[in-house]
């Protein structure tokens, strides 16, 4: 906290906030059940409730902090640490299970770019609708509409339905509306993970500007560079609890040292401490971009490499360790797995002790957007042995350049699926007649 912050008026006060979810749903009066369950005899229901008790999960627990007016606070933590839940509670989207929070002044939350946008409406109409969704009054929007259009850079298309926009235009317009909010407290989720570098730079610049005008910004992010650039104070959450709160460099150091963060590079310089056994020990694993440099961010339209180095420790010629990689998304779903059996010539080569480098090329147009965690293992067959197995060894962010070259083409909205392969399509007209006249 900067030295003068204590003197400034309070903007946010969080006191012992906790949020419990129950088996994927909430806890409280209003529980998701089918009518059939609701109508089932009480005895059965009590039984079901007892079962539910085991499946409750505290997404947030006993979190307390205060934010002074004009502070820009980053909230960091790994997946599932409770960052987004905290933001949802502070936004008023969902109530806390325990504790209390106060927000002083007009609050706006930006958890999604383009909330309230409708594809059938024109750019101008969407500005009004999205503005109202974010809490702006109509006269206020009318006053700002020209600025919004200019900031988005879409003046020629402003009276065109946004379904005809390129994805880049759509995102720019959507962000532009949000950027013209003038709340006292702005809550921002990781909306910056979308779009190209230019768009992200613009978003950050705008948020800096908002912060510099004495407004309070609470910013949830995975991106340490963005947090360092924007925030003067960082709160670290882990397992739903607040574990650190202080100047960005210190908290980020805590985060990385505690192994709470996963980056695109992991190294074990001392073999004695490295995961492994007397056969094989990991030395490093790195995500390499097209230029061969370590990268945290991967463009899904380009190939990249995962490089693993390990020490082969034995001179037994029968020892044939192999490397396997699991690619896991942030929900814990394994997207796919691969092993270096793929290199057949290596597989036939007799082994000697020494450093082995195993590199896997991930093709373009395979992954979908999102955070991907890599689990690396070294094993042997005959007998099946696991020498080393490191979950979440490295992680990287997959981004869509949204420049129309991806699989999604010009489509701007959410694209489903855990992978995004480029498939062959063959399209052509095969007849010249309309089977019946459609009246609507």
């Amino acid at each position, binding site marked *: 906290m900067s030295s003068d912050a204590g003197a400034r008026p309070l903007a946010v006060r969080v006191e012992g906030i906790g949020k419990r979810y129950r088996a994927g749903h909430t806890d409280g009066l209003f529980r998701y059940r089918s009518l059939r369950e609701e109508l089932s005899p009480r005895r059965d229901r009590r039984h079901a409730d007892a079962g539910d008790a085991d499946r409750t999960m505290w997404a947030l627990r006993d979190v307390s902090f205060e934010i002074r007016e004009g502070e820009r606070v980053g909230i960091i933590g790994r997946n599932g640490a409770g960052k987004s839940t905290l933001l949802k509670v502070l936004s008023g989207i969902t109530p806390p299970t325990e504790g209390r929070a106060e927000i002083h002044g007009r609050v706006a939350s930006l958890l999604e770019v383009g909330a309230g946008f409708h594809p059938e409406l024109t750019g101008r109409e969407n500005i009004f609708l999205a503005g*109202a969704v974010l809490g702006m009054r109509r006269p206020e929007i009318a006053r700002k509409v020209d600025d919004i259009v200019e900031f988005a850079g879409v003046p020629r298309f402003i009276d065109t339905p946004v379904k005809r926009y390129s994805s880049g235009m759509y995102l720019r317009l959507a962000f532009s509306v949000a950027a013209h909010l003038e709340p006292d407290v702005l809550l921002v989720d990781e909306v910056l993970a979308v779009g190209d570098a230019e768009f992200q730079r613009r978003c950050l610049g705008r948020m800096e500007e908002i912060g510099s005008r004495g407004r309070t910004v609470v910013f949830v992010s995975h991106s340490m560079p963005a947090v360092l650039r924007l925030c003067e104070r960082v709160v670290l959450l882990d397992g739903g609890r607040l574990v650190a709160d202080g100047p960005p460099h210190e908290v980020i150091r805590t985060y990385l040292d505690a192994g709470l963060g996963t980056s695109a590079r992991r190294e074990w310089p001392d073999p004695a401490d490295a995961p492994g056994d007397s056969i094989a020990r990991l030395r490093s694993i790195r995500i390499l971009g097209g230029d061969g440099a370590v990268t945290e961010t991967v463009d899904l339209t380009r190939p990249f490499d995962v490089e693993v180095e390990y020490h082969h420790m034995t001179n037994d010629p029968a020892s044939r360790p192999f490397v396997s990689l699991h690619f896991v998304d942030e929900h814990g779903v394994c997207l796919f797995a691969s092993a270096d059996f793929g290199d057949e010539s290596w597989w036939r080569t007799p082994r000697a002790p020494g450093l082995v480098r195993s590199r896997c090329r991930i093709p373009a147009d395979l992954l979908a957007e999102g955070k991907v965690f890599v689990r690396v293992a070294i094993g042997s067959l005959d007998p099946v042995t696991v020498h080393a197995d490191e979950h979440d060894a490295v992680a990287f962010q997959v981004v869509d350049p949204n420049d129309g070259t991806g699989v999604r083409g010009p489509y701007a909205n959410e694209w489903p699926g855990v992978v995004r392969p480029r498939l062959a399509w063959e399209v052509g007209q095969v007849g010249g007649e309309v089977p019946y006249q459609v009246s609507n």
Partner: protein
Amino acid sequence: MNDETVTTTRPVRVLEPDGRIALGELWSARDLMVLLAWRDLKVRYAQSLLGAGWALGQPLLMMGVFSVFLGVLAKVPAPGGLPYPVFVLSGLVPWVFFANSVTSTGQSVVGSAQLVEKVAFPRLVMPIAAMLAWLPDLGISIALLLGVMAAWGMAPGWGIVALPLFAVLAVCAAVAVGLWVAALNVAYRDVKYAIPFLLQVGMFATPVVYSAELVPDSAQVLYGLNPMAGVVEGFRWALLGTPAPHAGLLAASVAVTGVVMAGGLAYFRRVERWFADVI
């Protein structure tokens, strides 16, 4: 404390486990309500050839079907020698509004799941906006009814000044039922399947295709427990000059509307905070 004096000029929002969304926020979200209604309206008719013509088509087509099968073939009597098409249309106008409103209102929260999960705003805005979006159709269909009446050489009498009252009752009935459906639909997806069926049944429990005179006097109050019975009878009285609705029936309809509305509002307000978690 020093900062308390500074912060009193700004609104303070308190978030706690059993906090309710202040009703006052509904008023500050009125622009959003109007814009959502306007969006529903625009999207409904965007890229449709007939556009708002659908507001005329639906009641007109139903009038034709009922006139042929019930008026001509089954010879269902219309009271006071009224032409059956005029009679049935005067019932269809409020009923179609009610049925469409309840259907949209019921889907309004579930249909905006993305918004509910990502943005905080008074959730009541959604069902009310969904109903508002059907008001222009109601206006158009009333004009259609007046046109059809003119074609039979009929004109409304002074009773027409009472029409807004019955239109308000129709709006209240639609919101009252819609609030329950919208909130229950979030928790129980069974509701989605039940509603079309219940609305079909409801039309026959309402004097749309037959006259309320067919119901015995002793059962009129019971019949009025269906709020739309009072609305339809009122519409006919105001526009066609049929006998005034049975007092007991009308009182029952108004009372039921009030009770269902109060209950729906209370239930909706009790559960709306959980929408984002459950939806």
